[in-house]
């Protein structure tokens, strides 16, 4: 009898374990769309941000205190680590509970924001923040859904090549163009290889750093309007998307990447892509404005390496896109649907000349308010500003722009291109079928 019970118990145990795994995917549902805001006059609201260390945290605490002193409205600040904030925000949205959803929070824009808007979670800021929007209108496109602005971008960075000036010099590359052509870029690769230096690190293990190469191919080949139209109509048959993949294949064909790049993580540890750049094992990495900060955290002395230089993603002969367009992304403040009016005043205050200047002086990001762009203290970061504001459009990271569902399928497929198991057409097909599943 004992044995039989044990056998049954094992099955029970096995199924329980399996159940627990399958149970991990579970969530509640709720709704709050279309209700009138009963909370409009509240004199208190919550603010979530991710500047949770050092000077940045102190500055935001000060900003909140100044606002309280000025208006008498209490700001409950929660500073959290970036990934934690993302997880908590998602959980709060899943709960659908106004009490759980913060009143002011960070949005990444694009398709993700559009989904939140569709679910009725976000407040329309078009009129209440009209003055602010007119100042930063260069950057609000990605935060606009159906001609209404739902988030105010306060930092907008661009992706480009961070390179090691010393290693470039050692390889005999004396002149580095701030916006090279692909021929010049390939020249850098050749010289670096001749000098036995690994030219590039890429964190293809995390997929998105690899995907950035393809996104830039799109920015170079597809005019901004073409991308917008493709997203709008869920039709990615324009040949420019195919060309993006061909450029990517050409770059991969040069074999410029670090050994084992298919499993290299983006930023964690000394053997990550950023770590290899910071410890002078490779000459370049394609990364955003966060790179100096990340690299600084991965060096022995904890300082931003002096050797870091920057140049834009190369342009291609006869390309279809505007050469001044860049690819990047930023952070914006969103106000939730149930937030009090004071929260809107607060985000306007956060975008004011004064607060943005303080933000720039502390190198917390690349300010969007033109009155603050000269205040950047860090010269390495400051060199991104003229390129960003050089007359082109800043296309959002495409995975964010398309939303996580299509973006995830796209990134998975681009990672396969890096592994040599998919081609330009496969990427387009993956996006197309994910977009059709969305409809």
């Amino acid at each position, binding site marked *: 009898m004992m044995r039989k019970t044990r056998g049954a118990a094992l099955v029970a145990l096995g199924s329980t374990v*399996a159940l627990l*795994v399958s149970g991990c995917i579970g969530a509640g549902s709720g709704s709050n769309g279309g209700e009138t805001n009963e909370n409009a006059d509240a004199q208190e609201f919550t603010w979530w941000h991710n500047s949770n260390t050092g000077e940045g945290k102190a500055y935001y605490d000060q900003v909140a205190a100044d606002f309280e002193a000025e208006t008498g409205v209490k700001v409950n600040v929660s500073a959290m680590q970036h990934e934690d904030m993302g997880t908590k925000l998602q959980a709060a949205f899943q709960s659908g509970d106004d009490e759980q959803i913060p009143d002011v929070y960070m949005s990444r824009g694009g398709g993700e924001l559009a989904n939140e808007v569709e679910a009725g979670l976000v407040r329309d800021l078009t009129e209440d923040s009209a003055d602010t929007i007119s100042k930063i209108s260069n950057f609000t496109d990605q935060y606009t859904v159906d001609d209404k602005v739902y988030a105010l971008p306060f930092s907008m960075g661009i992706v480009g090549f961070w390179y090691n000036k010393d290693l470039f010099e050692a390889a005999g590359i004396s002149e580095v163009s701030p916006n090279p052509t692909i021929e010049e870029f390939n020249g850098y690769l050749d010289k670096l290889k001749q000098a036995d230096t690994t030219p590039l690190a890429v964190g*293809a293990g995390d997929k998105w750093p690899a995907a950035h190469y393809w996104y830039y191919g799109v920015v170079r080949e597809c005019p901004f309007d073409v991308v917008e139209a493709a997203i709008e109509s869920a039709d990615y048959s324009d040949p420019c998307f195919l060309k993006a993949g061909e450029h990517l294949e050409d770059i991969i064909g040069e074999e410029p990447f670090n050994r084992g790049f298919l499993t290299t993580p983006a930023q964690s540890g000394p053997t990550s892509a950023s770590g290899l750049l910071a410890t002078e094992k490779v000459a370049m990495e394609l990364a955003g404005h966060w790179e100096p900060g990340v690299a600084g955290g991965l060096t022995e002395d904890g300082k931003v390496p002096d050797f870091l230089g920057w140049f834009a993603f190369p342009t291609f002969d006869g390309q279809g896109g505007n050469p001044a367009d860049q690819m990047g992304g930023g952070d914006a403040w969103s106000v939730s649907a149930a937030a009090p009016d004071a929260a809107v005043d607060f985000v306007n205050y956060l975008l004011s000349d004064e607060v943005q200047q303080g933000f720039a002086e502390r190198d917390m990001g690349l300010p969007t308010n033109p009155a603050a762009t000269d205040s950047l203290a860090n010269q390495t970061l400051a060199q991104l500003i003229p390129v960003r504001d050089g007359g082109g459009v800043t296309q959002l990271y495409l995975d964010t722009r398309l939303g996580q569902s299509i973006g*995830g399928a796209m990134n998975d497929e681009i990672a396969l291109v890096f592994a040599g198991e998919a081609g330009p057409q496969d990427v387009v097909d993956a996006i197309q079928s994910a977009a059709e599943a969305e409809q």
Partner: protein
Amino acid sequence: MTVIARGGRGRVTSAWRKRLEIAFFVTPALALFALFVVWPIVTAVQLSVFRWKGFGPLTDFVGLRNYLTVLGDDVFVDSIVHNLIIVGGSIAVQLPLGLAIALLLNRKIWGQGLLRTIIFVPYVLAEVIAGVVWFQLLQPEYGVIDGLLGAVGLQTPEQGWLGDPDLALWTVLAVLTWKYLGLAVILFLAGLQGVPEELYEAAQLDGASWWQVQRKITFPLLGPTMRTWAFLSMIGALQLFDMVWILTGGGPANSTTTMATYLINQGTRSQNFGIAGAASVILFVIALIMAVLYQQLILSRDTRPDVVTVKKKKKVIR
């Protein structure tokens, strides 16, 4: 009790009391089970028939389309194959190896306790920690393993052990073997304690060789332990997640995805919670079928004596 219960009323009260008592003690466990097991499953099944992005109400009913998507996805089908390779590979490698080590460590040798501890340490380590350590050891070019192999003049794979789609799954399997061999050894050692010393003595008196003793006495008597271990190993391999997530994240080129990494990738990364829900239900069904089959085909050996007695009793009743 018996004195009071002699009357009819007393017996009823006592029966109800007993039921109440059972209910009282079982309810907390049942409530927890319902809350943490039954409810999540019901939700997962519910989610699996909707298209849901993680917020807002469940409105976009798609029926069984998510299941078709999952089953038609090469990545998911491959991940089932990977799971099965790991199930088979773990048993095929760890069973003989674990048995051999257990037999060695069962002998009276110097430092027995220390050796047993060393073998068991990997199992005690958190899977995440072991994963991070191995990830660093296996780094191409800068990792310890590449360094050691390079020092003796051996060629290491260009993309590293984890970066080459043809090697990655086997590398993961090797790390898993390192991690879980200790469990097999400790279970087998415990099983060996249960083999009566007299049998060995009798065999020796009959002049049986060492190998004969193992084959005719040790292995058969270790049978229940081995079958139980294999069951645990199978279930563990089916729901494998942590080690793969840390070592490869399912890559390179989806060569190491498991069902669990697939559903996390679809769920939290791509916000396709419906598809992830469908994948989790499929994972559950596969695990359940394998568990029941294992129970019926293999563990039933251990239950056979009971089955026989039940049959006999039935005959008597007829």
